[in-house]
């Protein structure tokens, strides 16, 4: 019983982790149909923001919950204005430019902070015990925060003026522009929001994984796979792909160890895309956000 509960919690954590690292990418992908290859570096920058801020005496919670998304969101807006907006309609060039951006960020951070960091933050909140098994309290908090974040994005998309305009632009940018919406501004805002959520996720994960200039690489494979398996709708796509792939990853990891967990995740995604080439939400739940 305790084992089952602990296992379920572990699988929930894997799913939440996938959703958390993918949501920022999914927002940008859903809006512009472009995979932001600098996504891993946005996560990395969020992590660095938290580490630098706490080293300078800022409260850890404030750094994670406020500072990381604000800083990375601002970087995202700057990137969109200086680089991405020149490349609208040139999808492949956008991919390549964001890849260049990813190398650029890795280079900058390595130059400033060095190839490895000396300080790490330990995850707060200690351990929670379930019968004879223990689980990290921080992991449970992350599950809760991820669920909250998904709900918040849903509410923004569904019930605010910005969400309405963003959904309209997503469905038909030309029509939205003809109706007087500044699509360029919407793209800037969504890119900034996507970056902010990525920074938020990176900041939250920094205590678990530590920070390194190249740490983005460990996230992106899973985040990319989740987003393209999910398809174009931001929330339904991220949630359904995270549940499916995270579930498979969690179960295989439990059965055979972490080595094959990621391989199973990838294989499942490739087979899924053979039958649903535009992702889960390309075929199912088409009307969802």
């Amino acid at each position, binding site marked *: 019983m305790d084992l089952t509960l602990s296992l379920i919690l572990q699988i929930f954590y894997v799913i939440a982790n996938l959703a958390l690292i993918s949501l920022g990418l999914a927002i940008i992908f859903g809006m512009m*149909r*472009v*995979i932001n290859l600098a996504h891993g570096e946005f996560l990395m920058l969020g992590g660095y923001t938290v580490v630098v801020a706490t080293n300078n005496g800022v409260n850890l919670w404030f750094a994670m919950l406020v500072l990381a998304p604000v800083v990375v969101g601002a970087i995202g807006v700057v990137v969109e204005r200086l*680089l991405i907006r*020149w*490349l609208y309609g040139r*999808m*492949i*060039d956008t*991919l*390549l*430019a964001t*890849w*260049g*951006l*990813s*190398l*650029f*960020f*890795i*280079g*900058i951070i*390595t*130059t400033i902070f060095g190839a490895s960091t000396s300080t790490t933050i330990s995850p707060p909140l200690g351990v929670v015990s379930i019968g004879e098994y223990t689980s990290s309290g921080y992991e449970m908090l992350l599950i809760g925060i991820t669920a909250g974040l998904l709900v918040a994005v849903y509410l923004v998309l569904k019930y605010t003026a910005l969400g309405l305009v963003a959904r309209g632009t997503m469905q038909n940018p030309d029509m939205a522009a003809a109706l007087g919406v500044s699509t360029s501004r919407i793209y800037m805002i969504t890119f900034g929001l996507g970056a902010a959520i990525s920074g938020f996720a990176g900041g939250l994960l920094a205590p678990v994984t530590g920070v390194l200039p*190249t740490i983005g*690489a*460990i996230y*992106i*494979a899973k985040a*990319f*796979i989740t987003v*393209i398996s999910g398809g174009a709708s931001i929330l339904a796509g991220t949630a359904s792909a995270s549940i499916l792939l995270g579930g498979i990853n969690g179960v295989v990891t439990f059965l055979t160890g*972490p*080595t094959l967990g*990621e*391989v199973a995740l*990838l294989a499942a*995604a*490739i*087979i899924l*895309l*053979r*039958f649903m*080439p*535009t992702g889960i939400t390309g075929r199912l739940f088409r009307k969802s956000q």
Partner: protein
Amino acid sequence: MNGMFGQFRGTLFAALLALIFTIAAPSILEFFTIITLTQVIGLSILALSLALIWGYGGILCFGQTAFFGLGAYSYAIAAVNIGGSTGAMFIAVAVAAAFAAVLGYFAFYGKISDVYLAVITLTVSLIMYSLIRRTSGPEYKIGDALLGGFNGTGAPPLNVPGNAGAVLFPEHTFYVAMVALILLYVFCGWLVNTHFGRVCVSIRENEIRAELLGYDTRAYKLGIFTVGAAVAAIGGIFFCIGVTRVTPDVFSLGQASLTIIWVIVGGRGTLAGPVLAAFGLYYLTASLGTQQVVNTSLVLGIILIAFVLLAPRGVVPGIEKLATARRAGRRNRAKERRMRLRKPRGGISEDRHETG
């Protein structure tokens, strides 16, 4: 037909230059440079493979390193187990091509979009990277070959076919690698001018139109993708022979980005451009690696962004365009001169006609 042979003649000319370089190299370069060159040749074959499938096939493969690394690992493992390099090379190429065929089947027959394919291939390479890094420890071995995890595994040197004891000297390995590069270059140049190659180019230009003309675009894409993977695997073999080891870094994000940068800088739609870019950027990054002021990733990132924004066609097509523009200009000027010369004569004859 004439135009096709004209293009292929350019390929043969470039191959001839490379052959002259090969013969001259050992007498003008230092011994150490020759040893390094073998691994750079491996990398340039990787560049060639991506130039073929991206530049001509239009297939956006961000993880060509997956086949490169798979070729390198398969060679090392097979050579240790067989005890000779010749058979191991064939096994390595077959493994990479078979893997590409399976992956390509899912991608092309599922009709996934360009962006998805780019991301899937990159992810495959990255997951191989994290998979192979975890294989340290004596329990991870294939036959007699330990996988070695983070530290990688030793790659046996080349030997004379049929005689595992007769190991080649570094200069001879360099010759073999260079000849392989030249042959593969000529092969790719030939392939893109065959019927198959031209259908692939037409798919790159407009897939729906090619399909409506009755070509099974999925099969053509799968074909050129598999050939590209086999070429990349040969690159991997020579790379690991040059380094004498194969480490998980062949699958890494850094290696994947470099491969893309070679093709962007060299130019899509040429074969020689990316190969030369691989050589050029290797020496750039090697010289950047010796100093501490500017970070290599930073420079590569700026190069990639600058080329995408300012010179999306790359260096070699840019030069070609300039050259054809100049040639066209010269032709036009010559034509103008001829016209000017002819005109008065025509005028005179007309005058005569009128007076006569």
